[in-house]
């Protein structure tokens, strides 16, 4: 089975989803989906180990050699994203039971898990494939299931949020399709490696420029990079708590992976004449995203909405890393991709636990919640500290590498702005800390009290601990992202 390891993380949820649809009882669906995700995680871990040892792993689907058939081409970057997505999915799905039973009507729970598995299969498929069109197909699998998952929210506003997401997501996907069509017309191939070899031969073609522009705009819609972020706050706020935890930790990360893959592996961003202006665009939009996102997050009266805007800000940090344009910048971006998934996973899982107990995430309902749910709130606080970037947490590692990369690129103002952004983060995290821990609880406690259900709590605490662990032991994300960044820029330099 080891020869199929490159395919297994995708194949398991892909076959698992229809199999899950046949199971009739929701509890079985939950158990089945969790175990499928866990197996995918396991195979992704083995895959990462193998890519560390042997470098790139190729897998020709259907036995047809690329570029005629579809090829999976897994290097460190793919393996890291696969590991991250499947790991978060496993944690969230295992933890999901109480929250899903709380949020979703009984007759929908089984289908809910089928949709989760489909979404997972889609995202893993995007992260593993080496074929541009195959990427589009799996993008649509993950998007369609995401729309349905978002629409499952209890509030009717979830429906409109899902619809807006559907419209913008489809425009984004169609833009990507246009871009792929343009490069196909110019090169005759869809295989990414083959494209990378044939595109430089075309010189300064205006069609290549347009193709790249369409793909970047399309991916940035999915990534929710600043002016294209409009779908995100609504979707994250009104989706069921578990769905938000899952999406916030994975979907933007996969979109960022696609952006990096197309920019550096396919289009050779840094060796082209456009590089300078595009890098400026990424940095500018990143900075605007950081400040706009953080400021809105500070004034939000719903904590979940605040964190959604915070996600927009954090995406800004990642694009700044890309914009710096050096291997160090790219590495910082990838490290933040990894760490941010841990932070937002923890934060939104903690919110899911709180939502079960008090029935919402408005600040007005959270007064004194720290006394009633000490462990969940502690996990939230730890992840919040990590989000700010205080030493001893994973977030510090991200910020450290980002600042170092900015310094190495002699972009002093960036350092200043990154630190200022962290201060803004501190403000909205402090708002929670103040209300949750320092305010006294209201006289009449709303909803039930006591701690979150044990499985959910355990998963949240585990992710919170991961935030601390990866703040000290940085080997995994640093070596994988370092290798990936070097490979990305090395490929382009050839």
């Amino acid at each position, binding site marked *: 089975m080891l020869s199929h390891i490159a395919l297994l993380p995708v194949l398991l949820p892909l076959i698992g989803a229809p199999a899950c649809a046949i199971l009739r009882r929701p509890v079985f669906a939950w158990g089945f989906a969790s175990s499928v995700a866990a197996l995918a995680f396991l195979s992704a871990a083995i895959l990462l180990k193998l890519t560390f040892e042997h470098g790139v792993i190729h897998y020709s689907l259907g036995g047809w050699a690329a570029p005629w058939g579809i090829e999976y081409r897994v290097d460190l970057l793919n393996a890291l994203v696969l590991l991250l997505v499947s790991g978060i999915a496993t944690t969230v799905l295992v933890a999901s039971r109480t929250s899903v039973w709380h949020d979703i009507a009984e007759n929908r729970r089984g289908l809910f898990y089928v949709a989760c598995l489909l979404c997972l299969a889609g995202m893993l498929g995007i992260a593993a494939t080496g074929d541009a069109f195959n990427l589009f197909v799996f993008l649509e699998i993950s998007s369609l299931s995401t729309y349905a998952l978002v629409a499952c929210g209890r509030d009717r506003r979830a*429906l409109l949020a899902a619809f807006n997401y559907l*419209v913008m997501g489809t425009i984004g996907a169609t833009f990507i399709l*246009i871009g792929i069509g343009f490069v*196909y*017309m110019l090169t005759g191939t869809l295989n990414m490696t083959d494209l990378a070899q044939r595109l430089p031969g075309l010189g300064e073609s205006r069609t290549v420029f347009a193709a790249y522009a369409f793909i970047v705009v399309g991916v940035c819609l999915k990534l929710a990079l600043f002016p294209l972020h409009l779908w995100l706050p609504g979707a994250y706020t009104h989706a069921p708590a578990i769905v938000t935890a899952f999406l916030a930790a994975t979907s933007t990360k996969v979109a960022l992976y696609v952006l990096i893959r197309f920019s550096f592996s396919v289009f050779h961003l840094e060796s082209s004449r456009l590089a300078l202006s595009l890098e400026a665009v990424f940095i500018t939009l990143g900075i605007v995203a950081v400040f706009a996102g953080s400021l809105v997050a500070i004034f939000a009266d719903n904590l979940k909405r605040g964190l959604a805007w915070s996600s927009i800000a954090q995406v800004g940090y990642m694009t700044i890393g890309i914009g710096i344009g050096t291997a160090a910048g790219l590495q910082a971006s990838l490290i933040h991709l990894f760490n941010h998934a841990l932070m937002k996973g923890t934060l939104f899982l903690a919110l899911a636990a709180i939502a079960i107990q008090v029935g919402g995430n408005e600040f007005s309902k959270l007064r004194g919640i720290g006394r009633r749910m000490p462990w969940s709130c502690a996990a939230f606080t730890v992840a919040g500290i990590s989000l700010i970037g205080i030493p001893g947490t994973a977030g510090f590692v991200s910020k450290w590498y980002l600042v170092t990369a900015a310094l190495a690129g002699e972009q002093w103002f960036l350092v200043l702005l990154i630190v200022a952004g962290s201060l803004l983060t501190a403000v909205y995290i402090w708002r929670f800390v103040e209300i949750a821990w320092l305010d006294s609880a209201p006289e009449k406690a709303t909803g039930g009290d006591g701690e979150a259900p044990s499985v959910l709590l355990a998963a949240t605490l585990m992710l919170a601990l991961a935030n601390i662990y990866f703040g000290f032991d940085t080997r995994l994300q640093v070596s994988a992202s370092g290798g990936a960044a070097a490979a990305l820029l090395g490929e382009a330099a050839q």
Partner: protein
Amino acid sequence: MDVLSYFNYWAVVVLMMLGFFIVIARANLVKKLIGLNIFQTSVFILYISAGKVIGGSAPILSDDVTLYSNPLPHVLILTAIVVGIATTSVGLALVIRIHAAYGSVNQNDILKQDQQC
């Protein structure tokens, strides 16, 4: 002849923009989906035009044909059409639920209702 050789592509651009305009400018959610449909279909036309070889025939092997059009874009667009109908059906399902929840399918009305509460 030069204009003719780009006629298809420019027709695609016009179609795409009409679809895009409907998506952005119309407040009715069903209209938005129809616009999205045109927008996607125009991309299909782009791909299929790119696959045409003048003088070629349909890519079904036969002894008395020597020149075929390119089958690869056809395969890709078959998949893309399925994606399009899948998106439309999910979107329409959402519209029905939105209508049940708000009593309207006009974006402006719905936003107004949300602000009130």
